[in-house]
């Protein structure tokens, strides 16, 4: 196996019975660790205490839990005020509503103001499932990426989600982390490196490089392992920080493999794939295929069913890798 030892991933990566947990659980654990270390950490909640995984925080830190009701614009603008008063507010909702509904407050009151607010967006991706398109945030990276001062993170599993939620407390400035509602494979460990702004190469390879973020990183690894049996040597890079993009890691992937596939549970337009393409277009033009939602809205369905339906499952990733490999050969 070409899985890198330094990545400290679990044994049994391909085990169909791999343990599964939602990344939003990792937020709930990480914010508590952050709060234990830093008394300025507060949580602001918009009537979604349980589903944004704030119940334990509320129990442990009742005086630092602020309930604002269904007021997402206030969630963002009020948090800017809390931050001006020295707090480190974690503002929590579904990503569709914050940063979605509250975009202008996020952009002006938080990011232009450059205050230390941590935006926690749950329920991203089509894997939100039966709730349907209204609640499936698949445009959130695209609306956040053009905003100066923001750091954007999409953790790949519950363990990385916990690390990210804790790490942002000591990362000065506005941050956005996107989390998912549905259970996804737990495949990293406490030892897996995580540093904001630094992508981690999970699998070494030289034919095609997959640069992925969020829970589809696991699908990317499975695809790479299966492709190895077909004779393709595929690199897998976990680019958990979408902004600032780890340009060094992207350039290394492009130079090593000369073909890139980006994978994300997000609209193809404006996401990680776009960030990689924008960078490589000037640094080292490279063949690239994009796995993501193809400019359509989501719909109701079972999470895995939807991931397949919209072309982000293992077979779809394999197909994209093969296509990139072919295009490279022609180039």
């Amino acid at each position, binding site marked *: 196996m070409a899985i890198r030892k330094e990545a400290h991933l679990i044994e049994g990566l391909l085990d169909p019975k791999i343990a599964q947990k939602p990344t939003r659980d990792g937020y709930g654990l990480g914010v508590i660790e952050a709060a234990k270390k830093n008394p300025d950490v*507060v949580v602001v909640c918009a009537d979604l205490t349980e589903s944004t995984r704030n119940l334990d925080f509320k129990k442990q830190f009742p*005086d*630092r839990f*602020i309930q*604002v*009701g269904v*007021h997402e*614009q*206030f969630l963002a*603008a*009020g*948090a*800017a*005020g*809390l*931050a*001006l*008063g*020295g*707090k480190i*507010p974690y503002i929590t909702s579904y990503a569709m509503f914050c940063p979605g509904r509250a975009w*202008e*407050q996020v952009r*002006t*009151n938080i990011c*232009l*103001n*450059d205050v230390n607010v941590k935006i926690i967006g749950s329920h991203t991706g089509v894997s939100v499932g039966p709730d349907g398109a209204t609640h499936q945030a698949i445009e959130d990276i695209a609306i956040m990426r053009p905003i100066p001062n923001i750091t954007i993170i999409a953790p790949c599993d519950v363990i990385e989600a916990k690390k990210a939620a804790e790490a942002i407390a000591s990362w000065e400035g506005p941050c956005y982390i996107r989390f998912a509602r549905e259970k996804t494979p737990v495949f990293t460990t406490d030892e897996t490196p995580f540093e904001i702004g630094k992508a981690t190469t999970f699998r070494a390879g030289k034919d095609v490089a997959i640069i992925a973020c969020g829970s589809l990183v696991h699908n990317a690894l499975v695809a790479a392992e299966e492709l190895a049996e077909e004779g393709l040597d595929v690199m897998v890079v976990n680019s958990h920080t979408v902004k600032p993009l780890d340009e060094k890691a992207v350039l290394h992937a492009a130079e090593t493999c000369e073909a890139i596939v980006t994978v994300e549970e997000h609209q193809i337009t404006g996401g990680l794939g776009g960030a990689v393409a924008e960078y490589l277009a000037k640094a080292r033009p490279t063949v690239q295929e994009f796995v993501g939602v193809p400019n359509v809205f989501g719909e109701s369905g079972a999470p895995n069913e939807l991931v397949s339906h919209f072309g982000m499952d293992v077979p779809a990733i394999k197909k994209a890798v093969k296509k990139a490999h072919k295009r490279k050969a022609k180039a």
Partner: protein
Amino acid sequence: MGHLSDKRVKELELIANRLRVSVIEMVAHAGSGHQGGPLGMADVFTVLYFHTLNHDPKKPDWEDRDRLILSNGHTCPIRYAAMAEAGYFPHEELKTLRKLGTRLQGHPERNKLPGSETTSGPLGAGLAQAAGLAYAGKMDKKKWRVFCQTSDGEHEAGLHWEAMLFAGKNRLDNLVCIVDRNNIQIDGRTEDIMPLEPLADKYRAFNWHVLECDGNNLAAVVDALDATSSLFDKPICVLTHNVPGKGVSYMENNFLWHSQPFKPGEAEAAVNELKAIGRKLEAEYAKL
């Protein structure tokens, strides 16, 4: 009414007059900007910066200062004029308003100008930030208070009402929302665009204290803002009834002067009219 000496009130009136002149001069120099609101609010800003606020112009980041959040950021010429008069920066800098590289942005930016407290302009967002700030102050048992200057027109924004609910729920009595009740907005009179009345009753229904005063009567503004420090358990709204364009006869109560470029001679006429008022005030002051 009033505990200030007549002399002190007259001093404040003279300051307000100078601020009005500065507003006209800076907006004329910039070639764009807002006049009506800033002129109407000159008396309130005079009282805030020269009577009410606990602040130190030489230490804009002083931890224990009262915080003034300007929600309707487009009225910043009056804040900049008051800050220059108070000594935050040289009066000469007012000429840089809206110019490339200036600290005096068309709408204020916290990271450019120390003492501006927050970046503001998009209407309806100031009270939310002020309420968050006041909540943080309460959490840390701070003595400082938060004043939020708002326009009446921006009360149409849903976010403002979200903030009113939050402040009422949390009994933020360290928060004062001052409303520039001048009855105009860009497109006309507020009661034609989207009626706000009964505004005081609306605040009361949202669990706020409400005080009202003539916002162009300095002694009345002093009394109202002084009274805010002895009200407890609820946030406090001060409805200041102002004449937009106050002090310049052709601007007063004309909604078109919310913001429009000066035609040749208009700014000079305004300054002359204001300076005549200033000379009258000086004469009255000399007799006290």
